[in-house]
C-alpha cells in the first residue's frame, strides 16, 4: 500500500483537491438558522400542539421597543416615542404597531360611549403628571406599556412569522433617526433569534481563524519546521471545507452548536498529521534516508494501524451524538465524524503523498528537531514515579471518583435561550428588563375547545386566571375574559350589574365581540378566540425563564385543569425549552452509553479482549465523573452545548489510552517488566499523547471568547475533560496494567 501511495501520489493529491473544491462550491448554499425550534424533533408533544395552536391563532411574533430613563412620562420622551411609532408604522413587514397611544379610556357619558385616547396630552406640571400616572395604572390597555415605576415605556411591533428577522435592521435604522436622551432597547423572541444569528456569524468569523492561528503557533512550537505546520494545517482546512460542503449538500442549516464543528475539526483532525510529522522527524533524526519518498513510505507503514484505530475510535465516540434527539446535535455528530474520516484519509494517503515531493531537510533543521525532544527527561521522571506508586494512584482516583459522583447529584439542566447571552450583552439586559417589568417574553397557552363564549366556560377561565396569577414564575395572564370585561365597560355604567363583568350569555359575549370587531379589532380578538368561536385560550407569559420554574408551572397548570372537559392541551414556546431539557438529559445518557459501547467494542476487536475494553473505559469513566461532578459543584448547567461534551470527550480521550496500550504491548514483547514497560511507554508514546492532548486543548481554547455563554462553558469543560483523560491515560492506565497485569498485553509466546 505504501508503494501504491508513492506510485499514485499525483492522483491522490488531485482527487483530494478536487473533492475539496467540489465541497467548497457548495458553501454558498449554507444558511444560518438561529431558532430553538429546530432542536426539538417534530414528533414531540409540545411541538405538535404548538403547530395546532399556531394554525388556530396564527403565529405572529412580537418585537418590543423600549425607552428607558428615570421618568418616561415626560412630553419629550412621549413625543420621541410617538414619532418612532409613526415611522415604524411605515416599515414594510410590520403588520401592526401597538403603543400606549392606542390606549383608550372607555366610559359612558349621557348615553354616549366615549373612547378618548388616554395619552392625548402629556402634562408638564407635577400634579398633572401624577394624575396621568394614576389613570395609566388604572387602565389595563395602557398600563401594560409602562413599568410600574415609569422608568420604561414600550411599544409592540407585530410581525408575521414569514417576515425575515432582518427586519430588525430596518427597525434599528428607523430608531436611529430619532435621537434622544433615553436609552432605546429592543426585545422579544425575533430580536433574540436575530441576535443569535448575528452572534453565530461573528463567532464563526472570529473563532475559526483564531483556532487556526493557535494551531499554527502550537504546531510550530512542536516541530520548529514550516512543513510540519503546513501539512497538518492543510488537512484541517480541507476537512473543514468538506464538512461544511456536506452540510450544504444535505440541506442542513448552521445552528448555534454548529460553531463547534470547525473548532472540533481544528482540535481533532490535526492529531493524525501530528503523529505522522512527529514520526517523520524521528526518521529524519536517524539520518539513514536519502529521499523523502523512502521516509514517506516508512512513515505510512509504521503508523497506518494506530492512526486508523484511533481515528475509528474517535469517529465512533463522536457518532455517539447520533443518538441525541436534538437534531442539530445528531447533525454535528455526522458532520464532525465525516470531517474526521476525511482528515483520516488525507492523513494516511494525501500527507505522505505530498510529503514525498519535498526535499530532505538540511542538517540545521534536524538539529532543531533534536532540541525539541527535551520533554523526554521529565517524562522519564514521571514514568518512574508512576511505576513506583500504582496503588496510591488508583486509591486517589477512586476517591476523586466518589467526590465526582456526589457532585453529579447537583447537576442542573437549563436550556433557556436567554441564558445563551453574556451578562453585559444588550439582549441579556433587555430580556431582564422585559422579565422584570413586562412579564417576560416566553408564553404558554391553555387551549379550550367547545362553545367557548358560554358563561360557565368563561367563569372557569376567570378562576384559572386568578390561580395562575399567584404562580411566582408568571408575568401576565390574558384571556377573552379580560377583553370581555373591558368591553362591558362600554355597554354598562359603573354600578350597573354588567359593568366589568363576564357577559351573562353567550349571545351577549358574541355581540360585544361583534361590535368590537366592526372597528377592525379582529386581530385583538383573534389573539384569544378563533374566528368561529370554537377555540379560546388563556395566554400566560413567564417572567422566570428557568427550567425548574417552567416545569413547576406546567405541573400546576396540568393539575389545575385536569378535570376540565373543555381544556384540550397546554402548550407554548415557553415549554419548548422544558422539552429540550428532557432531550438534553436523555441525549446525554444515550450518547454516553452509545459512545462507551462503541469504544468497548472497538477496543475488544483491536486487542481481542473484553478486559482491554474494560480497562480502556476506566480513564473515560473517571473523566466523565470528574467532568459532571465539577459541573455540579461549580453550578454549571447542562445545556444544549455542554450536553455534547461526553461524546466528544470519549471520542477524543480514548486515543490516549489506545496509544499507551499499543506501545505498552510492544515494550512487553521486547522483554521489559510491567513497571519497565510502563516507564518506557510513558517516555516514548507519552510524548505523542501529550502533544495530541495539548493540541486538542489549544484548539478548543478559542471557544473561550465566544459570544455565547454555553460555548464558553463548553471550552472550559472540554479543556478540563481532555486534561482529565490525559491524566487518566498517563497515570491511571499504567497503574492498572502494573497492578492487574492483563493477559491481552502479554507477548503471544507467554
Amino acid at each position: 500500500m505504501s508503494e501504491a501511495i508513492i506510485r499514485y501520489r499525483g492522483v491522490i493529491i488531485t482527487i483530494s483537491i478536487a473533492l475539496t473544491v467540489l465541497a467548497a462550491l457548495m458553501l454558498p448554499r449554507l444558511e444560518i438558522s438561529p431558532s430553538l425550534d429546530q432542536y426539538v424533533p417534530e414528533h414531540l408533544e409540545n411541538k405538535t400542539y404548538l403547530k395546532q395552536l399556531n394554525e388556530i391563532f396564527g403565529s405572529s411574533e412580537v418585537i418590543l421597543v423600549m425607552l428607558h430613563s428615570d421618568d418616561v412620562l415626560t412630553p419629550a420622551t412621549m413625543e420621541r416615542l410617538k414619532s418612532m411609532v409613526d415611522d415604524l408604522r411605515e416599515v414594510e413587514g410590520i403588520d401592526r404597531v401597538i403603543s400606549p397611544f392606542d390606549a383608550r379610556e372607555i366610559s359612558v357619558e349621557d348615553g354616549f360611549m366615549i373612547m378618548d385616547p388616554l395619552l392625548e396630552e402629556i402634562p408638564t406640571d407635577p400634579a398633572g403628571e401624577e394624575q396621568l400616572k394614576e389613570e395609566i395604572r388604572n387602565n389595563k390597555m395602557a398600563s401594560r406599556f409602562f413599568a410600574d415605576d415609569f422608568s420604561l415605556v414600550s411599544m409592540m411591533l407585530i410581525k408575521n412569522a414569514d417576515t425575515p428577522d432582518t427586519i430588525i435592521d430596518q427597525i434599528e435604522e428607523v430608531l436611529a433617526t430619532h435621537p434622544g436622551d433615553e436609552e432605546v432597547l429592543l426585545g422579544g423572541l425575533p430580536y433574540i433569534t436575530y441576535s443569535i444569528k448575528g452572534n453565530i456569524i461573528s463567532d464563526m468569523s472570529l473563532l475559526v481563524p483564531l483556532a487556526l492561528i493557535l494551531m499554527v503557533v502550537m504546531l510550530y512550537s512542536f516541530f520548529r519546521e514550516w512543513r510540519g505546520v503546513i501539512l497538518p494545517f492543510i488537512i484541517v482546512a480541507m476537512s473543514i471545507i468538506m464538512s461544511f460542503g456536506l452540510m450544504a449538500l444535505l440541506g442542513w442549516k448552521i445552528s448555534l452548536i454548529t460553531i463547534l464543528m470547525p473548532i472540533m475539526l481544528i482540535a481533532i483532525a490535526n492529531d493524525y498529521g501530528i503523529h505522522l510529522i512527529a514520526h517523520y522527524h524521528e526518521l529524519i533524526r536517524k539520518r539513514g534516508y536519502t529521499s523523502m519518498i523512502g521516509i514517506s513510505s516508512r512513515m505510512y507503514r509504521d503508523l497506518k494501524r494506530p492512526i486508523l484505530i484511533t481515528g475509528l475510535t474517535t469517529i465512533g465516540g463522536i457518532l455517539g451524538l447520533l443518538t441525541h434527539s436534538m437534531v442539530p446535535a445528531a447533525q454535528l455528530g455526522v458532520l464532525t465524524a465525516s470531517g474526521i474520516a476525511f482528515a483520516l484519509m488525507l492523513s494516511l494517503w494525501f500527507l505522505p503523498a505530498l510529503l514525498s515531493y519535498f526535499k530532505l531537510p538540511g542538517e540545521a533543521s534536524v538539529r532543531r528537531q533534536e532540541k525539541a525532544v527535551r520533554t523526554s527527561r521529565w517524562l522519564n521522571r514521571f514514568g518512574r514515579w508512576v511505576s513506583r506508586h500504582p496503588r496510591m494512584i488508583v486509591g486517589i482516583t477512586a476517591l476523586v471518583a466518589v467526590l465526582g459522583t456526589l457532585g453529579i447529584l447537583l447537576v442542573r439542566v437549563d436550556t433557556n435561550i436567554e441564558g445563551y447571552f453574556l451578562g453585559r450583552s444588550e439582549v441579556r439586559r433587555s430580556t431582564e428588563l422585559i422579565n422584570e417589568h413586562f412579564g417576560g417574553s416566553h408564553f404558554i397557552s391553555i387551549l379550550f375547545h367547545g362553545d367557548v363564549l358560554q358563561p360557565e366556560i368563561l367563569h372557569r377561565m376567570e378562576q384559572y386566571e386568578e390561580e395562575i396569577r399567584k404562580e411566582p414564575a408568571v408575568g401576565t395572564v390574558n384571556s377573552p375574559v379580560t377583553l370581555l370585561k373591558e368591553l362591558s365597560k362600554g355597554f354598562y355604567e359603573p354600578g350597573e350589574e354588567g359593568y366589568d363583568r363576564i357577559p351573562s350569555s353567550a349571545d351577549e359575549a358574541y355581540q360585544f365581540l361583534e361590535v368590537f370587531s366592526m372597528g377592525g379589532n379582529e386581530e385583538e380578538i383573534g389573539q384569544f378566540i378563533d374566528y368561529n368561536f370554537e377555540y379560546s385560550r388563556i395566554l400566560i407569559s413567564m417572567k422566570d425563564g428557568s427550567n425548574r420554574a417552567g416545569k413547576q408551572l406546567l405541573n400546576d397548570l396540568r393539575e389545575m385543569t385536569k378535570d376540565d372537559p373543555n381544556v384540550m392541551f397546554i402548550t407554548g414556546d415557553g415549554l419548548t425549552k422544558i422539552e429540550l431539557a428532557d432531550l438534553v438529559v436523555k441525549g446525554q445518557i444515550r450518547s454516553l452509553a452509545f459512545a462507551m459501547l462503541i469504544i468497548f467494542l472497538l477496543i475488544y476487536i483491536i486487542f481481542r479482549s473484553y478486559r482491554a475494553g474494560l480497562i480502556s473505559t476506566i480513564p473515560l469513566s473517571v473523566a466523565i465523573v470528574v467532568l459532571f461532578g465539577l459541573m455540579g459543584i461549580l453550578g454549571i448547567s447542562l445545556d444544549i452545548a455542554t450536553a455534547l461534551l461526553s461524546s466528544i470527550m470519549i471520542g477524543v480521550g480514548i486515543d490516549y489510552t489506545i496509544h499507551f496500550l499499543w506501545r505498552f504491548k510492544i515494550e512487553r514483547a521486547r522483554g521489559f517488566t510491567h513497571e519497565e514497560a510502563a516507564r518506557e511507554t510513558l517516555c516514548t508514546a507519552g510524548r505523542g499523547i501529550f502533544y495530541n492532548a495539548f493540541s486538542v486543548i489549544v484548539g478548543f481554547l478559542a471557544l473561550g471568547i465566544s459570544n455565547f455563554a454555553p460555548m464558553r462553558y463548553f471550552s472550559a469543560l472540554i479543556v478540563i475533560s481532555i486534561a482529565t483523560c490525559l491524566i487518566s491515560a498517563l497515570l491511571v492506565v499504567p497503574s492498572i496494567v502494573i497492578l492487574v497485569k492483563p493477559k491481552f498485553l502479554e507477548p503471544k509466546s507467554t
Partner: protein
Amino acid sequence: MNIISTIRTALFLLLFTGNTVLTAQEDPETIFSRAVDRVLTNQMELSIRIQTAESNGRTEEKAYDILMGRFGEEDMMRMVMQEPERARGVTIVISQMPDETGVIEVFTPANGKIRKMRATPENLERVGSSYILSDYSSKAMDDMQFSLQGTEDVEGSPSYVIDAREAENGDGMGARFLIDEDNYHIHEIRILDEEGEPTSVTRLTEYLPVKGLQGKLQPTQIVTEDLKEKTVTKMQITKVTYRPDLKKEDFILEQASE
C-alpha cells in the same frame, strides 16, 4: 378586513356614483355618468350575504339587511345583522349631516343596550364607515378628475378604462373603472394607491333589474379581492328594492333599555 369595511368597499360604487351622475357632462365623465345612471344609489333596501375567505383558508359568512336613505342633506344608513344567529339583530345606525358631527348608534339585542358615539371621523373609522359618509356622500363631482386610460377586454366585452381621482390631490389615492362599451355596465373597480398600484379589485356581475324602479339595474354578485390582506370577499345581493317610502323614523332604533 372587517365586515363594515367590506360593505363599504362594495357600496363605494353606489355612493360614489350617486353623486357623480348629476354633474357628469363630457367624456370620460359622460361614459361614467351613463354607467352610474343605470344603478340605484339610495332610498333603497338591500339584503346582502357576505362570505370572506382569508389567505389561511378560513372562511366567514354573514348576512345583513341594509336601509340607505337621504333626507334633505342628511345621509342615513341602518344595518341589521341577520346571520350568524348569535348576532341577529345587532344594529348600527349612522346619520350624518354635511359639516356636522353625526351620530353612530349601536344596538345589541342580547342586553337591550343602545350605545351612541359621536360620528367623528375617528369613530366612523372605528365602525368602518368614514369612507362612505364623510368622504364621498357629500362630495361634489367638481372635486373629481376623470381620465380615459384606454380600453380593455373584460371576458370578451370591450370596456373603457376610466381613472377617477380627487381633483385637488390628483396624485393621491383613486379608483379605476372598467365600463362596458355596449351596455355601460361597470365590470370592475380597482382601488389604486398613491403610486397607481391596485390595492383591491372588485368585480361586479349578474346585473338584475331593481324591483319597483324601472330602468335601474343592480349588480348582484360583487367579488372583492384585497391584494394587500390577500382576502377574497364575495358579496351576494339577494334583494334590492327601491324604497321611495323610506322615512327618518325607519332609521330610529326602537328598543332602548335606557
